[in-house]
């Protein structure tokens, strides 16, 4: 969807190119047998379509990996099965079947039950690390055997609706689902994404502990995702709505400022070669929730354009307003397989002080109940030479939250004192 600068490690198999340190490898030779390569296999062709990594979390054959590694199986279990590959001491590889038993789509985690018993488990770390501590990210791309990247722990990021560990180190695609281990040999997080340039992200191990202790045994995976999405959006939308929106001045208007700490905001202005001036502000989440191939959700994005055209007639100014109102700067993407078309309602509205033309548009998720994408566009009409256009995008929220959020958002606008 929008603003994906952290592309989830995309199920693709890339050849590992990280720094394998011989001494480190020695340190971890005991853990080699805890690591597996997770594969999604197309039942028709019997060929693998996705490769990721995983590791045993208990000695009864429970494997942790990323949800995104096995998402194809979640949406089409009759088409794709899960396998994993284990390298034994003789360096020969053995393929086993695994069954999906639980997952957490919000934090991108999944638990698989293997056929094997008496597996060698990795221990989970239960304390905080200090910034700057060394972490070893492990993965098993292709059949190269265990591969290790040395990185630095950089704390928990605050740029997402959900917490992630920021790792300075080259996590490579194919290492998705593999563990990142402290120097004491315990798992601190699960490799999940990279933003390139030595910036990696891990799912904190606390979420994995929660998932292991979760007694849910989902049968209908789609309904289970539906439930998780609804619960998650309720949590973060409520957190935003519980506080008053901070506002700031944009031209002669007072507009919503950064309404949640994890949003990233930008500003820009332009007047070159145009008969009017614009000042732009926009805020957005940095990452979204991966559901399946070209199917993500969870974005929050809003943009604000202040248009100032002092030397234009009201007629020409109206056409400029129209252009901004009709063509949103950003929009959500998706395919017919997962989304309905938008349904819109467009009217003149007046909050306490400003008259807008506003269009409130929703589209549905074909697999889920009561989950929608919101796209709101509004433009102020009161002033003859200045106007404020805004777009609000909320992906994967309930109808009630779409309405509550939109109301609060549009009511946050006023004339600047």
């Amino acid at each position: 969807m929008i603003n994906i600068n952290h592309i989830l490690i995309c199920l693709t198999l890339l050849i590992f190119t990280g720094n394998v340190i011989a001494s480190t490898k020695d340190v971890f030779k005991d853990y080699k047998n805890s690591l597996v390569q997770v594969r999604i296999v197309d039942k028709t062709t019997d060929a693998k379509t996705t490769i990721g990594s995983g590791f045993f979390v208990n000695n009864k054959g429970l494997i942790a990996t990323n949800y995104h590694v096995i998402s194809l199986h979640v949406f089409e279990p009759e088409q794709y099965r899960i396998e994993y590959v284990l390298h034994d001491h003789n360096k020969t590889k053995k393929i086993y079947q695994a069954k999906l038993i639980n997952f957490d789509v919000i934090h991108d985690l999944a638990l698989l039950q293997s056929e094997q018993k008496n597996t060698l488990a990795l221990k989970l770390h239960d304390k905080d690390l200090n910034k700057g501590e060394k972490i070893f990210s492990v993965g098993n791309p292709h059949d190269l055997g265990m591969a290790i990247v040395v990185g630095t722990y950089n704390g928990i990021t605050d740029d997402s609706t959900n917490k992630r560990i920021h790792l300075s180190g080259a996590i490579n695609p194919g290492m998705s689902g593999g563990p990142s281990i402290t120097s004491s040999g315990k798992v601190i997080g699960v490799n999940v994404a990279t933003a390139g340039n030595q910036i990696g992200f891990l799912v904190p191990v606390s979420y994995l502990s929660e998932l292991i202790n979760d007694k849910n045994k989902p049968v209908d995976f789609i309904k289970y995702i539906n439930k998780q999405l609804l619960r998650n959006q309720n949590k973060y939308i409520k957190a935003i709505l519980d506080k008053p929106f901070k506002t700031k001045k944009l031209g002669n208007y007072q507009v919503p400022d950064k309404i949640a700490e994890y949003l990233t905001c930008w500003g820009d202005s332009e007047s070159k070669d145009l008969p009017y001036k614009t000042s732009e502000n926009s805020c957005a989440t940095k990452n979204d929730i991966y559901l399946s191939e070209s199917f993500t959700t969870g974005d929050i994005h809003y943009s604000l354009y202040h248009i100032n055209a002092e030397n234009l007639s009201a007629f020409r100014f109206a056409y400029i307003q129209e252009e901004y109102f009709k063509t949103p700067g950003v929009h959500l993407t998706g395919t017919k397989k997962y989304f309905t078309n938008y349904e819109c309602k467009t009217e003149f509205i007046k909050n306490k002080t400003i008259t807008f033309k506003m269009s409130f548009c929703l589209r549905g998720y074909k697999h889920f109940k009561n989950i929608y994408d919101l796209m709101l566009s509004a433009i102020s009409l009161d002033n003859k030479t200045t106007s404020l256009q805004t777009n609000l995008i909320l992906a994967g929220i309930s109808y009630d939250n779409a309405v509550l959020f939109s109301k609060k958002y549009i009511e946050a606008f006023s004339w600047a004192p």
Partner: protein
Amino acid sequence: MGPLIIEILDRFGKVRERHHVNNYPCLIGRGYDNDIIIDDPYISPDHLSVNITENKIEAQDTNSTNGLFSVQPFKKQNKITIENDSRIRIGHTDIRFRFADHPVKETIQDRDKPSQLTMLLTSGFILPIVWLIFTTALVINNYIEETDTVNIQSLLSDIYPLMIVLFLWALAWSIASKFVTHRFYFAFHAIWVCSLTFISIIVENLAQYFEFSFSLSGSATLISLTLSVLVTTALLYGHLHYSTTLAPAKAKRISLFTSLIIIGLVEIGALLNKPGFSNLPDYSGVIRPEAFRIAPAQSVTDFFENTKTLKVNIDKTVEEHNSEK
């Protein structure tokens, strides 16, 4: 009664030949020794003789192979008394008899005696005035709609292509009219197409103002679609009227029918090209100056009260999708 005229009709009942009867008996047949020769293989060389006896005119079968028939009632006869408008059949040919005092319809006034409007529209001097008004209107319209910086050169260069198309259009109709009616009405055709293009721009604008003012989503499309049928009909009718000899009623029917077909095809094409799925919402984005707003602005609460139908519609689509699976 007056002199007799014999009309040979074709199979549609239209007159093919007319003959004045100067001497009696008047002989009719396929042979070259007749007064009236009819080239119909079912007619005998000496088929019929038209005689005058005691103030009566009679058609007499002269021993033909296939005989003489009265048309109403259709009956084989040896002799038929001829009156004004009598109709007989010999072979496969109908013959009508009329006397010189038979009344005829009123004369249709030719366009050579044109109305004042026609004189105005076809005179050359009004064309530059219309052209100037039209060009100015186009330039103003483009100027208002332009959201970028504008200058007069760019505005003029924007309208050149349209001007050339309209010129060629008017020229084509003028040439057609020269062929069919032997008159070259370029001024009329040019004025006509410019005026109607001008009207359609006005109509389009009015429809959009209407949509904005009353906050009626999609009404502009509907209004301009309806009016574009009327404008196209008027355009075609004007051209047909001045470049063909079609009767006005027929020209109107043809124009309406053609414009319905053209606009219907364009709309069907647009519908077919519309993507079934889009990541962009489709909403009425028309904005005009606030002074033209007539629909009241709703309160935020009222607005969202009425958004439930969106949810209902979407849920229905989702349900339909799931039941299809």
